[in-house]
């Protein structure tokens, strides 16, 4: 049965070329995501008062969120418009309440729990942040992958690439970070800058990136 699932999912790709920020495309691909078994277990959608149980529950939720985001190539999660299907059970009339979602994301953001997300600071200090990055790969992993692709696979060491090229260029279409948010990509590049492997010139879309 697992083999069949994988085969079915394989048939879906390649993913649509448009960006994943719009909800409509997400909805279309929701059906193909195979939800893990906890999603058909009603207590999964109620935050457990027992702390041991809750820790387990949050672990499963964290796994679900990460695999969901990875499957749908979701880099950013918004609380105001959460991806449909993620926090609702596919089979039960149950869903995780918004306050519990926030609690879950807070939990995921802690380093002890793997820092699977990071809150994007809100515009003002008074309101809570509504959006977060979902790190289905950590920033370090992204940096490694990006550097390996530029330097080893395409042999562009020393060349200067634009950020736009990296995000949406023809060559990067088959790469995992294709369509990544610009801000997130910049964070990844910052990691490389710190490692001394990249230099960034200019601003915004026109910014150029030189790999060493």
């Amino acid at each position, binding site marked *: 049965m697992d083999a069949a699932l994988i085969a079915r999912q394989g048939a879906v790709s390649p993913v649509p070329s448009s960006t994943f920020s719009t909800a409509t495309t997400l909805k279309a691909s929701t059906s193909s995501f195979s939800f893990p*078994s906890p999603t058909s277990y009603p207590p999964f959608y109620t935050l457990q008062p027992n702390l041991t149980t809750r820790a387990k529950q949050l672990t499963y939720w964290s796994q679900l969120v990460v695999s969901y985001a990875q499957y749908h190539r979701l880099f950013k999660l918004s609380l105001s418009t959460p991806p449909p299907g993620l926090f609702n059970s596919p089979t039960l009339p149950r869903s995780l309440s918004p306050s519990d979602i926030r609690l879950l994301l807070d939990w995921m953001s802690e380093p002890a729990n793997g820092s699977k997300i990071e809150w994007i600071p809100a515009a003002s200090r008074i309101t809570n942040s509504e959006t977060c990055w979902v790190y289905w790969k950590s920033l370090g992993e992204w940096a490694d992958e990006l550097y390996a692709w530029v330097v080893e696979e395409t042999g562009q060491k020393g060349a200067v690439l634009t950020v736009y090229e990296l995000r949406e260029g023809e060559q990067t279409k088959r790469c995992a970070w294709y369509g990544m948010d610009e801000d997130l990509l910049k964070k990844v590049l910052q990691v490389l800058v710190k490692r001394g492997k990249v230099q960034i010139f200019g601003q915004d879309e026109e910014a150029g990136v030189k790999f060493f």
Partner: protein
Amino acid sequence: MFLRHLDLTTALRPHLYDDETLLFVQDGVGLYEGKEKIPNYQNGHAYLTSHRVCYVDNNEPRKYSVAVDLKEIDRPEFYAGFLKSSAKITLFPKATKRWSVAIRSPVPKYASPSDGLLNATTTPPRSSPATPAPSSQVNATWICPICGLSNRVPPNFDPATANQHTPLPPCQACGVKPPLTTLSKAAIAAISNRPSASESSNLTSSSPATINPPIAGLCPRCTFQNHPSLNTCEVCGASLQQPSTPIERRFPSLAAAPARPESPGPTSTKTIIDDDTIETIKLSFRAGGERHFLERLRGALIQRKWLLQSAPPIPRPTGASSSPTNAQNNSGLNSPVEPTNRSNTPARTTVGIAGLEQRGAELRQNNQVVIGSAFEDLEALMTSAKEVIAMAEQFRKSSSGAGANTDGMSTEAQALLSDSASALGLATTKDMLGTGSAAENLYVTELSRNLAEFLTDDRRGVLRREGGIMSLVDLWAVFNRLRNGVELISPLDFEKAAVMWDTLHLPIRLRRFKSGLLVVQERSRTDEKTVASLLSWLRDGAHGRLEHLAGQGPPEFGRGVTAQEAAERFGWSLGVATEELEMAEEVGALCRDQSIDGVQFWENHFISTFDNADTRLGMTANLGASKV
């Protein structure tokens, strides 16, 4: 004087006989035999009942608890104490005691008071105050399997109640204790041979004129004609107990004779139970209370309640016209009928419906008389308590029979009402305890034992009806209700008493739930058992899987239950069910599912089930798929 082994209730209090009432309880009591302290009997409770003085040890109550029947006590003597010597009460046995050996304490029975009345019908009228059925087992002998000597079965040995804990007398020759079966067989054989003997003894006791000396010395075993002053047969050694009371009267010197042929031979055995060599028993009151005890002991000795057990009811005032029919009325009331009365009256032979109607009318008239006289004053009520209770019982039966179709009263309430009559003798009241600083504490411990008895009483099944667990408040209400509005327990005392269960090692425990709810539970019921039963219920998917639950999750997760369902399933109250479910959640066995329908509890699959390989595969399958 016999110190008898004492049957204890689950709450480690003396088992009271029918009609026996508790008069006084005192803590910190030690026992002396003569002038010597009796080892192991130095710290306990003294219970004074209408029939007995009981000692219940504080440390080893099951092992070291004894009782002395009041009927064997001649008089108490008081010693006020001096300096470090505490006050003591000495109990002197009756001198005649040595001769009327076969007095056995009545077997404790659980029966309604009406049963006691039924039994009373078979006993002789009060005019002959002879102790019931002496000489019943005089001829019972057992053959020692070691040396072959025929020993006498001790008079207090009762094959019906004997078990391996019953102290057995050793053989008089070789000192080896016989097996229990040997003794039982001998006793049963003697009983089966008895009818003729008891008949003759009845004859002698009821009509003193027929006593003739030849019988007095005749050995019942070998028929050797002994001298009347002997009390054992010269030839075979059998004891000649038959001529008990009359002989004593005739030969007063015998009563003082030190010979005690029936005493178990070697007294070296340390047990003091059933040892009739004990001359006097002294109770030492180290924690005070001796004056109250003495006062009530004297009262009890004067009242002689134990005689009432076999006594006919108080003759009731009856009009001259109704006297001939009185006997018939009595039979309707389950009360004793004096045979002479019936034989003297010409039986009225009215038959048919008229006869039935007449009987009914007579019955009603009689009831009226009894009730009328009973409530005339308190004294009368107390003397005719037996009858009134019997009548109440009868009324209850008739009302429950009729109430099945007409009365809206729930059966439970009726049961409570009917229980209340038998609960009359239950309570320890503050009145029974002395005054002083320790009295309050003693009251609480006694109340605590009372409660434990009440809860473990199988007749009531209070806990069982509530699914083995009930809240303390419910218990308080039920318990106070049973006290009929008399001597109610204050909530404060009640809680104190409940807390004492643990320290007294009683089979009931008080449990505090997380929310602070206090519940009462049997000690044997632990959380693990509760959780196990909950889980097995939840896993039992086929049973009770209702339509509205269908489709809620695949069957491999079992099913979710609400507190309401759990309450129905286990017979708990709703609050208890909620607490039990939350307790199970607390230990990680269950988890909750909160939805619009309310909170449902499921078996916790977070910990175990989702860890298996299947789930992981499901997760990684997604990861793998997206990479392509």
